[in-house]
């Protein structure tokens, strides 16, 4: 399996190298769908230039990266293209290994449940076989590396790629799951939470916890459960504190906290992007601004606990849905975030027969992706459209993403029902039954 992966990596690297050298690189770096105020490369360079001038990068409103990025790029600025290509490759490799392990786990679990007779007798065609699961890790790596969204993110040198790498390593560490990796998992988690929003850390924390539940049954009275939780929380907090102090010591000031986290939470910059926030707050009455900022930020992470309760048996699917919700509702989304959860779609390819709207949703997503640059050009350069056109495409794109995720969720739940109740359902009088969600 290593050889096809290496081939895929080589093709991806070639594509990126070719694009770096072409004139498209400048065009792609300017695109607002790919570079947001949080992760644009232009702003990283600006932050480093401000540091050279002797001014703190956080004294202005241009640089919103964590100090860890300054640490990283202070020395590597000459090799930036190489760094981003390597991060993409690392992400793909991490996802590959993670999904490989996940397949093993799924297989083991399936065998266990079949032996315990938990499945209905006529669901043979729904059981996953090693044959069909053999190529899934490669497909995941392929989906990630050759996704046009990822390629554009890489060519634009958006630090979203580094974000994705940390998340991928976190997923890898979580799925590997033994004691050693638990520490890695929490370290990755705290790095990731430092890199992106603190908000996300809360739910990912619960996410991991839910995964580990597989090995430790959840009984609130159980001592081992609480012991484990305490261990994990302590480890997480310690690594968080260490990383925050490291960030403090770079510039000897706490300026980065309002500049990075305050910026993500309060959304002062209304540069258009593919999310829902910018136009909403551009047209918001001042009086209600604070209320709606809170509502939108809460929206990001309040799905965690209900999803955790519903999907406690399926932590990886839970991670997928959670990552998707975060990348739809975060304050400054980019296509790089979308690319990460889309890389997981081959893992659920066995759900294809239960998906209801996949054709129309994929059409919506493709058409919207193509219309984004067109309507941007019409608004900003040609002057013949106005901001409403771009906003409409933003709405459509987000609806498409939301319905895609909920479609997969529906298909997943439906398959689970069929697995336990049988594929051919009959009513009391023997006629074929319909399945409804009530």
């Amino acid at each position: 399996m290593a050889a096809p992966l290496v081939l895929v990596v080589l093709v991806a690297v070639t594509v990126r190298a070719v694009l770096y050298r072409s004139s498209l690189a400048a065009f792609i770096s300017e695109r607002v769908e790919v570079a947001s105020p949080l992760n644009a490369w232009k702003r990283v360079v600006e932050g480093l230039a401000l540091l050279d001038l002797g001014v703190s990068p956080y004294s202005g409103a241009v640089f919103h990266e964590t100090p860890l990025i300054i640490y990283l790029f202070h020395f590597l600025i000459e090799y930036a293209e190489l760094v981003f290509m390597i991060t993409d490759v690392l992400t793909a490799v991490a996802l590959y290994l993670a999904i490989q392990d996940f397949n093993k786990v799924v297989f083991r679990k399936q065998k266990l449940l079949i032996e315990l007779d938990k499945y209905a007798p006529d669901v043979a065609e729904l059981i996953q076989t090693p044959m069909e699961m053999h190529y899934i890790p490669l497909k995941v790596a392929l989906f990630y590396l050759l996704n046009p969204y990822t390629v554009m993110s890489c060519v634009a040198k958006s630090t979203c790629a580094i974000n994705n790498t940390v998340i991928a390593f976190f997923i890898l560490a979580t799925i590997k799951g033994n004691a050693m990796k638990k520490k890695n998992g929490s370290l990755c988690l705290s790095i990731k939470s430092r890199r992106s929003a603190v908000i996300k850390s809360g739910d990912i924390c619960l996410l991991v916890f839910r995964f580990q539940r597989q090995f430790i049954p959840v009984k609130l009275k159980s001592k081992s459960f609480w012991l484990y939780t305490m261990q994990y929380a302590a480890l997480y907090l310690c690594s968080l504190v260490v990383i925050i102090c490291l960030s403090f010591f770079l510039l000897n000031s706490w300026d980065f906290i309002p500049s990075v986290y305050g910026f993500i939470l309060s959304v002062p910059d209304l540069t258009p992007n593919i999310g829902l926030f910018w136009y909403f707050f551009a047209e918001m009455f001042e009086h209600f601004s604070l209320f709606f900022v809170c509502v939108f930020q809460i929206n990001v992470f309040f799905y965690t606990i209900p999803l955790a309760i519903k999907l406690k048996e399926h932590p990886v699917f839970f991670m997928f849905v959670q990552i998707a919700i975060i990348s739809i509702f975060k304050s400054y989304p980019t296509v790089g975030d979308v690319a990460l959860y889309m890389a997981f779609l081959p893992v659920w390819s066995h759900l294809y027969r239960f998906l209801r709207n996949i054709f129309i949703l994929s059409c919506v997503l493709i058409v919207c992706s193509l219309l984004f640059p067109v309507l941007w050009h019409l608004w900003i350069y040609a002057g013949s459209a106005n901001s409403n056109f771009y906003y409409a495409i933003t709405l459509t794109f987000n609806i498409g993403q939301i319905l895609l995720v909920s479609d997969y969720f529906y298909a997943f739940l439906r398959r689970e029902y069929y697995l336990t109740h049988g594929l051919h359902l009959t009513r009391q009088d023997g006629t074929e039954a319909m399945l409804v969600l009530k």
Partner: protein
Amino acid sequence: RGGGGAMLAAPLLLLLLLVAAGPGRARRDALREELLLSPLPTGDVAATFQFRTRWDADLQRGAVSHYRLFPKALGRLVAALGVRELHLALTQGFWRTRTWGQPPLQAPAGAELWVWFQPTVTDVDKAWKELSNILSGIFCASLNFIDSTNTVTPTASFKPLGLANGTDHHLLRYAVLPREVVCTENLTPWKKLLPCGSKAGLAVLLKAERLFHSSYHSQAVHIRPVCRDDSCLAVSWELRQTLTVVFDTFASGQGKKDWSLFKMFSRTLTDACPLASQSKVYVDISPKNKEKELLEVTPPPASVHEAVVQGDKKTYAVYDLLSPSLFNTSRSLNVQLKWMRPQDSSELPTPILHAQRYVSGYGLHTGEISTLIYNTHPYRAFPVILLETVPWYLRLYVHTLTIITKGKENKPSYIHYQPAQDRRRPHLLEMLIQLPANSVTKITIQFERALLKWTEYTPDPNHGFYVSSSVLSALVPSVIAMKDVDVEQSPLFTSLFPSSDGSSYFVRLYTEPLLVNLPTPDFSMPYNVICLTCTVVAVCYGSFYNLLTRTFHVEEPSRGGLAKRLANIIRKFRGVPPL
């Protein structure tokens, strides 16, 4: 006999008391007024009025209650708010340095206010806010729009022009309102501050309908402390009110470039201000290229004054309104100037330092500000300090700042950059750049345009947003060595800027203000946007709520609701099989 003696003694005693107490109480103040008429190379005429009131009082310390020539409104302002220096200018139009030459005193388009506070002021920002509000009331200008989003604290430009010991730049505040319009409403309170008002002296010429029919109109107020005498043991306060106006006589003079006071101001001078100790009119009759004079001035001047002004030797015809011989022949003085021969337009001299600024780029996403600075001196290089204030919604990227002179990169020896904070303070960029002789320096910096909240746009958002002029301060080397001027003896137009040494003179230039368009949201859509976005969020919430709270069930056949039963009844009547 005793009563008569007492009656005589009383008034005598009173007189003695008054004589004794008089000089001790009254503070000496003096007013000088001056008008400088200079024909510009293109045929326009620039008229600069200066009214200087000098008051030997210490406004900061003693409680002064008797104001004579110095306006009470400004005196109390200086005393109450701890102002050390105040410079306020209201300008309409732009001084074209390249064609008109170096200005005696330039101001940027709009309103400009810069103030040095005393070191005793603890909260400078609070004092600045109060000051701008009070001045807004005094001058009927919208100076109350000066707030933290357009105020900066320059570190190198705008050094004090008066007496100063120690210059902590945290006591300096500078703000420009480029959108401010100047009109009669601002001229009237300015004229009211003059001791003679507009009733006598040179101020009778200041009639609004002629002054605003001009290419450039700038009125300013400068307050600063000066030395009382050569030993400089005591401080006097100087108030200068200057008004510069440029008339385009070619356009309004039936094709001829001759001008006269009556043609320009539709008034003539009849007398001097009785409160003024000096009242003079200077006309610049410097010969060009050392040839026979090309202009003829009538009535012939009583005296001619030669001075080195801005590095050049100039000759002025002087009319002293206080001399009795001036109004002997006629009741009024109407200075007229005739051109003897048509001026060769190729002889237009270029000033040693001039600059221009423009915005380039297309679309509403990004842009670039370019400043071109010209040094036309044939062999001398000199440094210039450039101060740029850019509003926060044009996000500057300082890593794109490039300075190119003669094709090579020119690194500034001093850069002070303070990045903007959204909705709180603007960008401040100050640089000290060395200009080589006979060169053009191009300074470019790229910016990104921000999308603002819909309430932050002006009612005419597609007009654009103004970027205030950038300021260039330089010590330009002069062709002829200049002697130190004695403020009291020399004309006012030579003594505004203190000169450090005779080999160069101080010049402050302003570039053009810029007009930049920002992308706008649709202003008619707030409710629609809120509804649509909340709908999308609700779609997500609804889908997930359904999937999380409901479970799959096999559908039970239902007997049908009320509608179905009604429909079946109707079908029975029609004779059609039921549903």
